[in-house]
């Protein structure tokens, strides 16, 4: 099975003015596509890994032959992370359901969660991701470098925010905090709630 770039469930301009159409198009058709292409390239000649999803591959990196482990970690991670990211973006959705309750229970309030998540995303040095994960039943905010996924350390992503500069440079340049604020305007809480329910 060859890995494929997923189609976005919305148009590139659907998240304007928070995420601009040009960034969305390059991010999806160039950056994400490159991870898919390089993942497929790394897997060539490794038929035993056929049929495994990117998420399955990065959930057990020790099972990946050492010669391609780094490439699968980077490009499998890039593929899985971006696929999740696109799926949790939609304008105008308010926090809902059991995830909203669990966030209040864990972080005190929705605002306190936003503050802590933003601090993690804002202070992550270099390229990487900020995550809300389910870690054995506990909600937790974590950062990962580059394309590392929480799945590789047994944590299930509920929300992921790409803080590579390519995610925001055309619109926000060096102003990552403004991009993080914009993210909360396009966060699809209904989808995040689905991921939370599925993670339990």
């Amino acid at each position: 099975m060859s890995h494929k770039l997923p189609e976005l469930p919305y148009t590139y301009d659907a998240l304007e003015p928070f995420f601009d159409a040009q960034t969305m198009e390059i991010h999806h058709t160039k950056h994400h596509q490159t991870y898919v292409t390089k993942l497929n390239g790394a897997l060539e000649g490794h038929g035993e890994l056929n049929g495994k999803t990117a998420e399955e591959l990065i959930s057990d990196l020790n099972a990946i032959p050492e010669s391609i482990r780094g490439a699968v970690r980077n490009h499998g991670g890039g593929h899985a992370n971006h696929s999740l990211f696109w799926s949790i973006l939609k304008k105008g959705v308010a926090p809902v359901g059991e995830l909203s309750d669990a966030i209040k229970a864990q972080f005190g309030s929705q605002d306190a969660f936003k503050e802590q998540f933003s601090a993690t995303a804002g202070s992550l040095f270099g390229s990487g991701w900020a995550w809300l994960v389910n870690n054995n039943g506990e909600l937790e905010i974590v950062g990962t470098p580059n394309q590392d996924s929480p799945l590789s350390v047994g944590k299930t992503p509920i929300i992921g925010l790409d803080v590579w500069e390519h995610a925001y440079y055309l619109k926000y340049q060096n102003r990552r905090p403004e991009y993080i604020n914009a993210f909360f305007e396009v966060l699809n809480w209904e989808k995040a709630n689905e991921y939370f329910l599925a993670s339990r």
Partner: protein
Amino acid sequence: MSHELPSLPFAQDALAPKISAETLEFHYGKHHQAYVTNLNKLIVGTAFENASLEEIITKADGAIFNNAAQVYNHTFYWNCIAPGSSDGPQGELKSKIESAFDSIESFKEKFIVSAAGNFGSGWTWLVKSADGSLKIVNTSNAGNPLTDGAKPLLTCDVWEHAYYIDYRNARPKYLETFRGMINWDFVASNL
């Protein structure tokens, strides 16, 4: 001791269109400046308050290291590129590169391959290692060869902010351009 943002060794529009004035407005005016500002705030009341950049880089870690190394790395990078053409490396530098990488062209190829494969944010360097040999090394994020006892000779910034305005995702195109902009006199002066 307060660290200062050094002047650029060229006019902000001197590298256009290879590296635009807009890129430099952000890369130098915002990113480099922010590392200087952050470093000056972070060292207050620490053992590094009066230390040189090199001393901080070799002894500090965490945010102080990150900001000090980024101040150093960017200043070094500006000196590594220049408007106009160059005859390429001469004399001792030329013969050292040839003996380490076979030829100048082969060195440039290897340097670009290394920089293209530097995953995430970071820097690609030509260094003189402790034993005197020349090597190409990649560092991640703020990483600097001084921490490994090597002497930086040349660097290329591969953080996306270095090329995103001008080249978008096309890092290889930026690297091809970089290849023709190297200030070999500066590289030779570091030997």
